[in-house]
């Protein structure tokens, strides 16, 4: 009975109908809709987990096209990410969004975007993939504009870039369709070699850019910081954690199912993409360092991490792909944690400007813990999960002759410490101010997802095996040989290059506990807590109103030393392009002068031009 129940159409019906019902329930019985949304997402997540991986294929025809939905190992990996994060985000939203307006709209779009992401990963044909892709785009667009006030260019920017991506995607799909006569992935993969070489390259480039836009690949990342900032934090967690991964999903598919067939150019694609990813990682890290808005900072960080993932995929050795996929999953977890904790701060203080927030650690200890584990994971410091993926990525890069790329990645991840410290320092550390006196820890429904995800990152850091297993299966689907992996030991191809995570964790754990015990017994009880106003300032006692917070221009020296490296902002280039198009449009508008006589003149002019053209070119013989 249960086996029959759980199939892909049932999942879709559950979530999409559930979304509509949520909207309707909001109209009838307010306050219930959040619980209903939770129920829907829980059911969906459960079914996504329980869905059999191979036998659940569902074929049908729509608009004279064959379509197919099915689950495979690769899909399953991403589906799990979406399912877990989706559920957590809904759970988190229950308190985070409580009391906001238009909640029906919010939950509707949230559920639709979760459903469409599942749709993307379960699609076994390009058409339904594209349909779900667009549904995802507009539902997320709705959420981006959901909370906006006077400024709405953010949503448009997001949508325009999405549209550019989607349309490139569409162009590629159409070319593929005319080649194979079908939208099924399988047919297209098999018939790809019959495409002319030029079209092959075109298709691959279009597909990669199309997917890459969602993955915020440079130079198409400009939408991301603003859109991430504009969306409610709860959704941003999903946005950055899962939605952007759909781009990665697509790039993986394109690279290892299509591009790899074009043997002549595959290495060039890899090379270009890897460097693009590397530059994405580096530049976005630099941009992140100078942000003052917590969510924008995280957004740039997100872009950077996606850059690592793209690098990992593009380098294409088994180890690098494994690291990329692991980072995909992990990034979903830790970026969700970070956005959720930023959201938690926002929930209590209404602030996201890092020049203004400060000293919340004692008010919100659990949120701080989440944020701390989040930044440790991002930084790639052992013993949390980030290290595993970073380590694999470096090993893979060093071993695959991307010498300079590895430097870039290294620098990027070192520079990441800067913004990570800024993030946690500005929100939680530093002076405790009076204005935050009444701030409390966020409600339990927001804490649970954050802590569970934090636990997950720790688990990956110590025993990554349980994730690597699914990843290696997914790599099997992509047709890539799996590297050596053990439950908690990392291997690379080179001798002696391995890390035993268990002993690392043991060592750190024991020493940490010992140190903590030592200090606590010997010290903590004997000290008394004093406020952060009570500090040494070279012997002077600070007055009440003295500014003791160092927050504005936190990394000014660094900025100065970077000099003009980060000046030519890509943002500005796109703005310039946009402006030029608009002014071109403005000029075109002047064709319509408003004078009816001129229009009449156009008619005669057009006719005369046609006559001359017809006479001189064809002699009136068509």
């Amino acid at each position: 009975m249960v086996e029959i129940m759980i199939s892909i159409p049932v999942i879709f019906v559950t979530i999409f109908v559930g979304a509509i019902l949520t909207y309707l329930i909001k109209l009838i019985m307010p306050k219930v809709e959040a619980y209903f949304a939770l129920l829907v997402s829980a059911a969906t997540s459960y079914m996504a987990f329980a869905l059999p991986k191979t036998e659940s294929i569902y074929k049908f025809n729509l608009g004279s096209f064959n379509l197919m939905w099915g689950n495979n190992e690769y899909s399953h990996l991403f589906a799990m990410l979406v399912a877990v994060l989706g559920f957590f985000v809904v759970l988190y939203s229950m308190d985070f969004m409580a009391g906001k307006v238009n909640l029906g709209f919010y939950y509707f779009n949230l559920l639709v975007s979760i459903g469409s992401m599942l749709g993307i990963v379960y699609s076994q044909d390009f058409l339904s993939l594209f349909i779900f892709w667009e549904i995802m785009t507009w539902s997320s667009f709705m959420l981006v504009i959901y909370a906006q006030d006077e400024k709405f260019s953010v949503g448009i920017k997001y949508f325009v870039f999405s549209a550019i991506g989607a349309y490139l995607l569409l162009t590629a799909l159409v070319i593929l369709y005319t080649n194979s006569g079908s939208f099924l992935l399988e047919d297209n993969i098999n018939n790809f070699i019959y495409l002319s070489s030029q079209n092959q390259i075109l298709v691959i480039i279009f597909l990669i850019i199309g997917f890459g836009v969602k993955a915020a690949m440079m130079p198409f990342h400009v939408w991301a910081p603003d859109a991430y900032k504009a969306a409610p934090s709860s959704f941003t967690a999903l946005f950055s954690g899962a939605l952007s991964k759909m781009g990665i999903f697509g790039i993986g598919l394109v690279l290892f199912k299509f591009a790899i067939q074009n043997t002549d150019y595959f290495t060039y694609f890899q090379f270009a993409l890897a460097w693009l990813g590397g530059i994405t990682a580096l530049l976005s890290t630099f941009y992140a360092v100078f942000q003052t808005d917590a969510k924008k900072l995280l957004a740039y960080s997100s872009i950077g991490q996606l850059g690592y993932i793209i690098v990992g995929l593009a380098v294409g050795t088994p180890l690098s792909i494994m690291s990329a996929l692991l980072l995909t999953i992990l990034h979903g977890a830790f970026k969700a944690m970070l956005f959720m904790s930023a959201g938690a701060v926002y929930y209590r203080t209404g602030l996201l400007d890092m020049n203004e927030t400060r000293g919340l650690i004692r008010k919100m200890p659990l949120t701080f813990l989440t944020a701390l584990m989040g930044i440790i994971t991002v930084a790639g410091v052992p013993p949390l999960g980030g290290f595993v993926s970073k380590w694999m990525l470096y090993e893979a890069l060093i071993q695959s002759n991307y010498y300079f790329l590895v430097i870039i990645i290294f620098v990027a991840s070192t520079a990441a410490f800067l913004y990570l410290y800024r993030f946690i320092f500005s929100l939680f550390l530093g002076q405790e101010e009076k204005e935050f006196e009444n701030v409390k820890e966020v409600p339990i429904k927001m804490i649970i997802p954050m802590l569970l995800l934090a636990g997950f990152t720790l688990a990956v850091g110590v025993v990554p095996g349980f994730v690597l297993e699914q990843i290696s299966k997914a790599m099997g689907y992509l047709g890539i040989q799996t590297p050596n992996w053990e439950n908690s030991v990392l291997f690379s191809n080179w001798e002696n290059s391995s890390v035993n995570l268990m002993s690392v964790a043991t060592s750190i754990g024991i020493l940490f506990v010992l140190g903590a015990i030592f200090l606590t017994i010997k010290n903590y009880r004997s000290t008394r807590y004093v406020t952060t106003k009570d500090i040494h300032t070279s012997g002077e006692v600070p007055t009440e109103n003295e500014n003791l917070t160092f927050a504005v221009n936190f990394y000014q020296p660094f900025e100065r030393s970077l000099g003009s490296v980060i000046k030519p902002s890509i943002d500005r280039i796109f703005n310039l392009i946009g402006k030029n198009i608009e002014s071109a449009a403005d000029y075109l508008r002047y064709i319509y002068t408003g004078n009816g006589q001129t229009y009449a003149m156009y008619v005669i002019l057009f006719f005369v031009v046609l006559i001359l053209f017809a006479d001189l070119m064809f002699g009136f013989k068509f």
Partner: protein
Amino acid sequence: MDSFWMKILGFVITPLVAFAVGVTYGGIVRKITARIQNRVGPPIYQNLLDITKLYSKKTAVNHGVMQHLGPVFAITASVTSLFFVPVLRDSSFWFNLSFDGDLIFLLYMMVFGSLGMALGAGQTGNPNSAIGVSRGLALMVGYEIPFVLSLVALMIQFQTTSIHGLLAVQDTFSSWIIFQSPFATIAGILAFLGMMHYAPFDVPFAPAEVASGPASEFGGKYLALMMTSGSIFTFVKLVLFVNIYFGGAEDLLTLILKTFILYMIPVLTGIVNPRYRTEQAIQFFWKWPTVFGIIAILIVVL
């Protein structure tokens, strides 16, 4: 069973030795500095005295849990790093966990402590601490580039990422890496200058500017623990560099000799140089050291 206890013993002894060496070096450095500056200077064991005194002191105040845990992070990181560095070549007693992690792991492990310190310093609410941390992190981005360039050059050249691998290479060729790839070594050593935070790269802790930066709010046992960790960490870095560039050491004496000489490089540089501004320091690393690192890689690749 025997080896197990030996191992445990190793875990206990190694930090002690590292601490002793580190503290002594610290004392010697203070002495040398004083002499060069035409002062008498404190006795060599002054640092040990300081630490002991601090351990015995009762700490009066704290600003919260993170300040409390900051030194713990630091000591955890330095001791764990120590465990993962082979202190002596061919002597399993000093190897500890060094087969369980490689160079890349170490690079990250070494950051762990700084991160904890920075967090602890952040909670104190002292603006100087935050400034110090900001400078330190920025500086780190500076010297990381040549250092990584150098390491990557070596890793690619010798097809290994583990310290044991590098040691074995130096063993088989019976020549140190400094002779096999001098450019990488130069880049590494220059980065080492920054890593040791001696002048001209002592921006994060500059006593006159930011009142010792991150540490300014720590006293008593916190400071003691931090100093301990610092001493051990100095030793770890020295051993690491000796292992990588100077063929490691077969016995303790050689190790001490080599590390001391290596240590003198930043120390002596520091004594005769004034402090850079932060951006100058960063830009310094992005000029010649980086060029050397790139040359090193190019040599390997070509």
